[in-house]
C-alpha cells in the first residue's frame, strides 16, 4: 500500500533537511512546491497534529471539511489530497506505512481538556498552546487555527456515529510522506496529550525529513 519517495524508508541520504522534534514540542517550516516532507513516528503510537497554510497567502489554509468532501470518505490515507478552504490541492499523501490518520478530532487544548477530563487538566500542556506559539512566528494567531490533521491518530467513526480516540496503530518507525502542490507553511504540534490513548499515554519524539523533488 505504499509508494516510496526514496529507495528505502530508512535511507535519508538524499534529504535536504532532517530534525528530531522532541516530545510535546512544535515545529514549522515552509515546504517548497514539489518537496516531500516525511514524518516518522520514531517510537510508535505518537499523534502528530498538523496545519498547512498557503505560504503566499495564509488566509488560504488546510480545510478538513473540503478534504473529506472531495474524497468522499472520513479518513486520511495514501493518495488523499489535502484541500484548502479555497478548494485547491495544497499537498497529497504520497507514502504511508501506517494506514490510517484522522482529520475530524481536532487538536487538544487546555480548555477542551478541562471539559473532557476535569478542571485539573486545564493546566497541562496542549497542542493548541504549541500551535499558538509556532504560528506567532509567522504573524498568525488562535484565530487561524482550524480543524487540523492528526497523523498516526486512530479515531474510528462507526455507522451509529460513535466517535472514539483509540490506541494508535502506528509502530516504531512508521512514516507518512506529504508532497507539496504549492509552497506551504507546514506546522506541527508533537501532541503532548496524556489523558487519552492517542499517544499511548506517553508522548515521545518524532522525526521529520524533507526531500527535493526528483531531478527530471
Amino acid at each position, binding site marked *: 500500500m505504499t509508494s516510496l519517495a526514496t529507495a528505502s524508508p530508512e535511507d535519508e541520504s538524499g534529504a535536504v533537511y532532517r530534525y528530531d522534534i522532541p516530545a510535546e514540542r512544535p515545529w514549522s517550516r515552509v515546504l517548497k512546491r514539489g518537496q516531500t516532507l516525511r514524518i516518522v513516528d520514531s517510537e510508535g503510537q505518537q499523534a502528530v497534529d498538523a496545519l498547512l497554510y498557503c505560504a503566499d497567502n495564509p*488566509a*488560504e489554509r488546510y*480545510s*478538513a*471539511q*473540503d478534504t*473529506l*468532501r*472531495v474524497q*468522499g*470518505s*472520513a*479518513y486520511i490515507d495514501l493518495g488523499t489530497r489535502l484541500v484548502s*478552504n479555497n*478548494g485547491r490541492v495544497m499537498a497529497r499523501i504520497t507514502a504511508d506505512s501506517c494506514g490510517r490518520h484522522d482529520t*475530524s*478530532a*481536532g*487538536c487538544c*487544548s*487546555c*480548555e*477542551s481538556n*478541562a*471539559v*473532557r*477530563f*476535569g*478542571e485539573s487538566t486545564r493546566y497541562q500542556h496542549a497542542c493548541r498552546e504549541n500551535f499558538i506559539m509556532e504560528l506567532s512566528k509567522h504573524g498568525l*494567531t*488562535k*484565530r*487561524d*487555527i*482550524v*480543524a487540523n490533521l492528526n497523523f498516526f491518530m486512530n479515531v474510528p*467513526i*462507526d*455507522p*451509529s*456515529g*460513535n*466517535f*472514539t*480516540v483509540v490506541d494508535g496503530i502506528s509502530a516504531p518507525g512508521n512514516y507518512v510522506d506529504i508532497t507539496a502542490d504549492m509552497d506551504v507553511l507546514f506546522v506541527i504540534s508533537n501532541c503532548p496529550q*496524556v*489523558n*487519552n*490513548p492517542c499517544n499511548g*499515554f*506517553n508522548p515521545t519524539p518524532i522525526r521529520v525529513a524533507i526531500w527535493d523533488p526528483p531531478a527530471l
Partner: protein
Amino acid sequence: MMSAEMKREISEANRRRYEQLRAAGQEATPKGLPDATALDAKPIAPEAVISREQIPADWYATMRLRRGELLRIIDDLGMSSVSMIGWREEDTSERINCADTVKVQWSAAISKGRVILSDMGRVFVSLVEDTSGAHDLMVGGSTPASTLAAFGTVSRNTHDNFLAAATKVGLGLRDIPPCVTFFAPVSVDANGAFLWNAGRKRPGDFVDLRAEMNVILALSNCAHPLNPFRAPLLGPVTLLRHRAPPAGSDNLCRSISPEIVRAFEFTDRLFA
C-alpha cells in the same frame, strides 16, 4: 525527575479514567437522550416570537442571539439543508468548534439533548428541540468547486455565503471555521465512505437552538454537497427567533454527561 514506575502508574490511572469516560459517554449517556421532538409537538406562542425571516434557496442570513434566546430553524419543504457557523459576540476569536463538539460528546451525530461547543470549552448553543437528528458535522457546505461538479456551473454556495456573511459582521475568510449542517443526513459506512440517507428528511423538520452565550450566527441555505437531488433550487427555510423561560439546572442539555456539566459551568462563569 519522575521515576519510571511513577510515570507508569500515572499512565495507567489516566487510561482507567479514559475507559470510564468512554463507557459513560457511549453507553450510559445515549440511553439518557430524549426522543426526537414530534413535528407538531412544540408550537411557539405568537407573543414569544421576536422576529421571523425566510431565507430563499441559495441565500444566507446573519443573526445575533442574546444568551437564553432561541432560534427555530425550519426546513419548510423538507428539501433544504442549513449550514451554520458562529462566533461569540464579545470576542469573535471564540467560535463554534465541530471537532470538540464530536470529541467531547463521543459522537459524530448530534440530536435533541446535545450541544455545540465553542473552541474555548464552553457551550455555544444547545439543541433543545430537534425533530430530525440528522445533521452533518464532517463534510461541510457547498463550495464553488462542489457546485461546478454537481451542476456543471458555479452557482451560489455556502462557502461564498459564509464569506459574505462574515464580512458583514467585520470578519473574513480567516474566521470561517468548519460548519454544522442541519437537515443533512450524512453517515459513515464501515469503510469510512459517506452516505446520504434521503429518507430521513421531512417537510417541517425543525431544530430549536438555545444560545448559551451571546452569539453571532451565519446561516446558509444551500444544497448539501452530498445531496444527490440535483434541482438547482431546493426551497426556503424559516428562521424564528423566540423567547422561552430560562433553563433550570435540571434541564437535560445541561446535565446529560459529566463533560457537559463542566462545559456549562465554564460557560456560566462568563456571566457570573
